[in-house]
């Protein structure tokens, strides 16, 4: 099970200082399970000599609202030898608690042979039904996360790898004191056809948005049509029913349109990523951290005339947009930071592609809707793209537990 050619320098570097350690380096983008085990094996041997372990822990963001998405991640659990259930193999274990006894029901066990974990306190697996949102149950104030690691090796060697703690704060938010990162502004445009554009902005300069090196906006669209009756009704439309934007590939656009309710990520068929890029009108990638705070923004103005066709019997077309803020890289990598909605509406046959844009639709800090998630999942499958996931569990961060 233990590969012979794992470079020892990786482990030495990672454990060169007792206490905080540097992230483990790997020769591939993310270590495979096999490679991870082999690292642990080597690490275990070194531990036996040095008696040094380094657990890491972080909570991102460190301040937020009750019910917020606090991402807790910890790492650095080291096996004392080849890890597994075979004879002679070792196991690891870890436990995460919040405020100890205060939340007695919360105890998150780390799987054997895992070196770390990542959980979202707004949706913790394994909790009693109705209590999955742990952050919903916490009162305002400072809370302490404790991460403890253990290692077991035959015949009876049990080693306490110690504990590391980190705090985060839940603050009350009367009147939105934490701030609202979203703004959707109707921008008048004189260029024909004259009418408003929608400027969508997510400003990360509020307390509970985590640091993020690259913050992007991802927009989905559900196309609906008012069908003549009787009775009149709204139906979901496909691109085959109302055409695709000029220049786009119909087959590719249809391929990323979900089954009803029909939603797709709102980028052209030639785009390589699912988010607004520099080609989008007024685009700017957001950032928070290292002394720089910059909004993520773009402007949209659909233009949808009746050419070359709109399916017979459709008298009105609506585009229902959902925009989600997403952190592509940085400490908040992989986190959904909130969503907003807007609506474009046009009566078929109206002169000069006349349209209207809704205002004052809701926005929040929650995760994307299930419709959006279906669309982004399908887009990733079809276009062979993977949105960045949560970072590897850290092997540094946190501090001593009092």
């Amino acid at each position, binding site marked *: 099970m233990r590969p012979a050619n794992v470079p020892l320098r990786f482990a030495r570097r990672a454990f060169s200082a007792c206490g905080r350690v540097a992230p483990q*380096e*790997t*020769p*591939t*983008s*993310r270590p495979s399970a096999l490679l991870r085990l082999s690292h642990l094996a080597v690490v275990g041997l070194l531990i036996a000599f040095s008696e040094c372990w380094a657990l890491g822990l972080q909570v991102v963001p460190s301040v937020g609202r009750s019910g917020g998405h606090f991402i807790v991640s910890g790492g650095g659990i080291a096996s004392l030898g080849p890890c597994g259930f075979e004879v002679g193999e070792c196991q690891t274990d870890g436990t995460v608690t919040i405020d100890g006894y205060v939340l007695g029901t919360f105890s998150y066990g780390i799987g054997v042979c895992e070196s770390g974990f990542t959980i979202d306190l707004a949706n913790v697996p394994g909790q009693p039904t109705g209590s999955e949102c742990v952050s919903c149950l916490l009162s305002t104030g400072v809370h302490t996360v404790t991460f403890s690691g253990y290692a077991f090796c035959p015949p009876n060697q049990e080693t306490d790898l110690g504990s590391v703690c980190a705090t985060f704060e839940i603050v009350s938010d009367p009147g939105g004191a934490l701030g609202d990162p979203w703004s959707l502004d109707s921008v*008048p*445009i*004189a*260029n*024909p*056809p*004259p*009418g*408003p*554009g929608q400027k969508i902005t997510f400003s990360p300069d509020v307390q509970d948005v985590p640091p993020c*090196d690259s913050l992007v906006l991802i*927009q989905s*669209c559900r196309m609906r049509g008012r069908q003549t009756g009787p009775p009149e009704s709204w139906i979901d439309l496909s691109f085959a029913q109302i*055409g695709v*934007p*000029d*220049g786009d*590939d119909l087959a*590719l656009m249809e391929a990323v349109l979900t089954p009803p309710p029909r939603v797709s990520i*709102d980028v*052209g*068929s*030639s*785009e*390589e*990523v699912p988010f*607004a890029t*520099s*080609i*989008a*009108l*007024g*685009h700017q990638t957001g950032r928070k951290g290292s002394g720089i705070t910059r909004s993520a923004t*773009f*402007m*949209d*103005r659909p*233009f*949808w*005339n009746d*050419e*070359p066709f709109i399916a017979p019997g459709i008298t009105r077309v609506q*585009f229902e947009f959902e925009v989600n803020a997403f952190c*592509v*890289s940085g400490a908040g990598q992989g986190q959904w930071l909130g969503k907003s909605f807007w609506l474009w509406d046009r009566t078929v046959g109206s002169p000069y*592609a*006349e349209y*209207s844009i809704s205002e004052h639709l809701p926005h929040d800090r929650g995760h994307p809707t299930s419709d959006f998630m279906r669309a982004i999942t399908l887009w990733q499958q079809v276009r*062979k*793209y*993977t949105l*960045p*996931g949560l*970072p590897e569990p850290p092997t540094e961060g946190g501090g001593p537990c009092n």
Partner: protein
Amino acid sequence: MQLVGIRFEALRSPILASVIAGVACLPISSLTAQTFSPYTDFQAMTPADLATIQVKLTYVGKQRVGQSSLLIAAIGNDPNIELFDGYWRAGMNYGNDAVAPASFGASVNELEAMIDHVALVPAVTDGDVDPGGYVSFALLNTAGGTTRVFEAIVNRQNGALLFEKLLIALQSNSVGNRLVWDFGCRAGTLPTAVPEDLAGRVSITFSGFRRDPSEGATFVGRVRVTNTSGSTIVPPLSLVIARERGNAQMLDDHRNTCNIPPARSPYVDLFIGAGLGPGASVDQVIRFTNPSRDKFDVTFRAFSGPGTR
């Protein structure tokens, strides 16, 4: 031939624009006709005149999400998209011109070459709106104190002819050529001829893939393309790096495919001189940045000869 557009009196005045937004749209009666200049006016311009010319590409068709326009100006001449305000044709979508465009500089020689090459495409120089046209190609010059504007709105077919000429004229302007290519790709107006797929004629190996120890999120490897056929492969030889999974991005100077699947995959042209003979190989080091550290997989394909990648 009647070259008539519509000039809107209301331009970028915030107050007036707000009024416009409030009433949703201007009544047609408030518009005045604006005459465009013929293409020959621009062919007759001297190099000195061309120092103030601007070339604009605007997507004016059906769209769910806006796309920036592209503005080309002589090096040293500040691009100014507002000069085009008012030179609008009825029924077209010029909303994408309301936001700052992408832009690049070109030499006077390149601009002259652009005009000369496009002059070979009557379907463009006629200055009309093609049936189903959705890409505006516009020229503007204020030389001599008179504003002259030419515009043709091309469809996919004539757009391919236009972009072929633009890319030829800008072949030595790497930034400009890339921006025009990207615009044409998104608009679906690049030439549609495809290069030869070398599947079965070459072997492609990828070796030495590792993280670059000097740069945290950079990964590097070497690709070797070997001609396993009995005949010489003609240039250009393009290596396409197709994403199978992940979100890593290629770091080296590259372009993205548009005409061969998968679309928007990075590709590089390999140096093979006059050709890659039977049994011969060419190597290419490629680098990726992968800050997320998510797993990523790529595959390789090779194409050769003329045609749009």
